[in-house]
């Protein structure tokens, strides 16, 4: 099991040049997320939530500022080292399940384990995780033979199988119904409690946000709110 990681963003900016002009997706955000805590990143579409998550995951590099995950400044690492960090420390979940269509549920999970360096009983661990998520009987099926909720649970299993220090989820319930959404959030919270991982969830859903320790609200690439769930602040309201 990995040691829970602290996430620190210091003056992070990410701008894109488009035909319509420069888009400031993330504009000088400074933010610290304590190890083992859970944070919801909320805000309207285009406010920079997913970009922020991409920066934390090392999928993108900031134009300015620094991103530190577990003491390592991921924003300065070369691509190879960032990939290594993702293998070891980070579990990623997306709105779309993003499973490999040619791999069975078990293999999708097994690949994540293999990428980390694998274990001799790799499939045993994978089957255990899938079993914990209620997919023990579906392990041998291809993604298109599973329902949307099942696919997303496989995606969660894939993210958790490595015991990551950080779990990053981008709208994990965005395409699920209320029941499945609740199940996924339960799974994530449960996994976080068990592993002590730091959990960052990008979400539109106030119900999902409320179940996490902290809610950070973004607008136009900036942090406009940072609070505990008991005192939620809607992006719209802040803007108004």
């Amino acid at each position, binding site marked *: 099991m990995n040691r829970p990681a602290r996430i620190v963003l210091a003056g992070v900016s990410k701008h894109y040049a488009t035909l319509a002009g420069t888009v400031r997706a993330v504009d000088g955000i400074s933010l610290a997320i304590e190890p083992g805590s859970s944070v919801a990143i909320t805000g309207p579409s285009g406010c920079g939530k*997913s*970009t922020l*998550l*991409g920066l934390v*995951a090392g*999928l*993108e590099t900031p134009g300015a500022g620094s991103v530190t995950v577990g003491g390592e400044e991921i924003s300065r690492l070369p*691509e*190879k080292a960032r*990939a*290594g*960090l*993702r*293998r*070891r420390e*980070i579990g*990623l979940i*997306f*709105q*779309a399940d*993003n*499973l*490999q*269509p*040619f*791999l069975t549920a078990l*293999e999708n999970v*097994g*690949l*994540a*384990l*293999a*990428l*980390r360096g*694998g274990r*001799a*009983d*790799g*499939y*045993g661990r994978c089957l255990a995780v899938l079993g914990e998520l209620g997919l023990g009987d579906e392990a041998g099926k*291809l993604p*298109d033979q599973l329902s949307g909720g099942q696919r997303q649970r496989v995606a969660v299993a*894939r993210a958790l199988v490595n015991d990551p220090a950080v779990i990053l989820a*981008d*709208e994990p319930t*965005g*395409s699920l119904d209320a029941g499945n959404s609740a199940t996924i959030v339960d799974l994530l919270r449960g996994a976080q409690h068990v592993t002590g991982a730091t959990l960052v969830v990008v979400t539109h859903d106030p119900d999902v946000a409320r179940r996490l320790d902290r809610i950070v609200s973004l607008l136009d690439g900036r942090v406009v709110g940072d609070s505990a769930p008991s005192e939620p602040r809607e992006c719209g309201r802040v803007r108004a």
Partner: protein
Amino acid sequence: MRSYVWRDLARNPRRTLASLSGVTLGVALFASVLFFVDGSGATMTRRAIAPLALDMQRVLDAPLGGGLALDQRLAPAGVLQRGRPATIALTVRNPGTAPAHEVVVNDEPPAPLEYDHGTTRVDGRLVRDPAAQSPLAQGLARTGLNIGTVAPGSAVRLTYRARATVRIADARRLPLDGTISSRENVVPVKAGAPPATTAPALRERIARIPAVAAADTLSFADLPAGSLRTAGGVVRNPVRVFAFDRRYAAHYPSIKVVAGGWRPGAAMLSAEAARTLGAGPGDTVLLHLPSVRRPLALRLGGVTDLARSKPLFYSRKTSRLEDFVYVPDSVVVSPELFRRAVVPAFRAASARPGSQLKSLPVTEVDVLVRRGRLRSDPGRALAQTRAVARAIAAVAPGQDELIDNISNTLGVARADAAVGRRMFVFLGLPAVLLAAFLTAYTGSILAIAGRREQAILRIRGAHRGHLRRMLAHRTLALAGAGSLAGAALGLLSAVAVLGPDALRAAGAGRLLASAALAVGLGMLVTGVALYVPGARALRREISDERKELAVAPGGRAAPRVVRDIAVLAVAAVVGVLALRAARFEPAGGSVSEGRAVAAMPSQLLLAPLMLWFAGALVASRTVRGIAARLPLPAPPRFGPPLSGTLRRSLRRRARSLGTGIAGVALVVAFGTALALFSDTYDGAKAADAAFVVGSDLRVTPSVLVARPVPPAYAARLEVAGVGAMTPVVSKLDNAVLIGPYDQDRATLTAIEPAGFERVAALSDGFFGGGSAAAAMAALRADPRALLVNAETADGLSIEPGMRVKVLLARGTKRQRLESFRVAGLFHRLPGFPQGTSLVANLGFVAAATKSRGVDFFLGTASGGGDGALGRAVSALRSGPGRDTPLHIDTTATALDKDQSSLTALNINGLVDIDTVYTLLMSAAVIAIFVFGLMLERRREYVILRAQGMRSGELRALVLGEAAVVAVAGVAAGLAVGVGVAALLVRILRPLFVLDPTLTIPGGEIVLRAALAGAATLASALAAAALLRRLKPAELLREV
């Protein structure tokens, strides 16, 4: 909608270029083949007639003159009632100055008249009917009545009566077919024929025809040995006396004056005769003519070298018009002297009762057509020369024979051009199919990639009709632009290979037609190929994607394999049937007879086409089947991430893999087949040339060499650049072979077996069951060993091991009868394309006949290629050739003289075009496959990246799939290509003299594989670079 399509095409340049590349490359290859055909056809006439020595010959039927005329009349004219008699009168006139001997008059009453028995009279005297038949049509052969000699200036009148068996409305209309012949003029002349014209008059009238460049009279007659002599010497060989003037010599430059010159009234002597007689310019020689006691004294104006003069020595026998029958001892006199002295002598000899002349004099008008005016296309040129021939035949019609060599040659060239066109269509047709395949392949990939966009359009309200119209617009734009670009690229390619002049010669109309065909066919085929997968994708639902994952191998693939195997089986059956029907056996061709050299069964070209297409598909499906059964790492492990992912992807997505492999296999198979065919074609041409020459070089001492050149001279010819030389003695019909039951004239070739084996282009196939080495060893071991041509042996019932007798040096003072042992049989001998009957040991033959001279030497050049050949020729000319005039033939000159315009075609140019395009297309297939992967799987790759897979590993993943496609495609393509080439070579067998053996160019194959590998690597690297530029955060967010 159009603007949407336009924007879509403009803003997705990679997709647009991928779609265009297949269309453009395929159509460019097809168009370049069409333009190549146009350009090559434009030079075919020139190439075809270049080796032709004589364009047309008007040979006089009555070389001895005679001028007998027959007049025939029927009385009464008008109505003839049934049973009424009519009188037929035939009047024979001899307007000449010499009597006509043994004049035969032949006639039968025209139907419905019937001969009235006992009514035939000659000059009023009744002639008895033989066996109750008309004396003018006796026996089964209906032979005529011999009326004896008709004196000069006299006439003989014959009459007979015939009765009408039915009422005849107009007796004047009855056809009268009486003929007359004589000992002097054995060719029957019809009644009413115009008086025989003379050669000078004929020449003058033919020369006036506008398309005729030159018309010259040529006469010759053969005289027996001893006919030519001086006071101190005699020519002991047969002599030919020619009659032509200096104008004729100017028109045919192969007639060379080596001493003195053309002087009025003076004769020219051949170099061989001059050497034998020791005569030269200013001397007098005596020519003995038949039936003339006193020889003709000829003052010599000069000495000529006629050894290479085809117009003089090509056989005039209709069955052997292409044979060069050289008579070394000859004398040239003026046409006037020939008419005045030689013709009357022969006429007198032929008139002598009981005389039998071996041959009569020949008189002809040799015609050269204005070749510059001939159209470049052999078919059109043929129409022109036939018109010239008609014009020439119309001059004094019905009297003599016209040999139209140029039309016959052009007829062959036209047939060759047609064969060539069919062959080129075969080479071009796969290009269209490849274009269709590439386009369909790209179309299917783009259709998958465009599914999301279509879904968005549907959400926004577009219905299927809209989407179909958009697809139609896109198809039209891509197929149109690609086909136009392809036609332009094809034109540039043809210009690069043939040069602009060749295409200019083809004419704008023809080029435009080819361009229109390329664009039209290209648009049609590629349009269908683009539209169909797109329309199919429109009909498909997303859930159909599941079918793309071939979890269970087999499924729908099985019927397709059966279908492909069925096509292969059809190709095999066609091949076997053709083989059994001997369709691959070469058909003998004759330019003089206008029979095409290459009677190629071009419909058989469908067999390699089927083998190509079905073979590539079966190979790809086999690889696909193997991939679908790839072993996976055994549980409980996923295995190494890279290989585990790659193997699972290959196993479960074998379908897209199979399509990529099929594409590469098709292109590589086509390119390989062409490369192999081209090398085999070149090899076969070179082998043919070596067979015709005998080796790399053939050195013939000029007739001007004063003394016989001994066999030992070979050592002097072995100068730097020349490998080895060996002497050969051979002359037409120089021996008589006497078997146990029969005998026949034969051409004996004497060789030094050891040297000949080292130098000559021998092949075991020439010696039936035995080997070349064994045959040469037999000759070496036993001086009296003899190799006999299999056909000759068959004709005389001779078998190996028998003892036979051979009359050596036949017809010379050295002739001698020797016994030999038949050591073996042979079918062919290098250096003797027209064949030779016997092969014997030179040492023994020379000793037996006490002959010291050889006819020619065969030699090899040190090193290969035209450069080595050129160096050897230069060394020979500057070395021994300086003292001894030598004629040097090489394999290169033999190729230049090739009579078949088809085998003379620059097929290499076409193959170069094909090679470049197949390489480009194989690179395009791999690139399309890789970028198809990118379009289809970029999300998968980004997920893997997000999961921590490094760029290098991702690159390896892309490269791995592309490499499997490239390696499997190239391997399958090579295997299929070799098969197709083997079949193609069998089909084109009739083009060659010798049996071509399939040549496998290792270098080219390695190059092709290396280029496919390089294309794979480049595509994978480019794909990896594209992967790095993708925005993962955006892609992963997409639902």
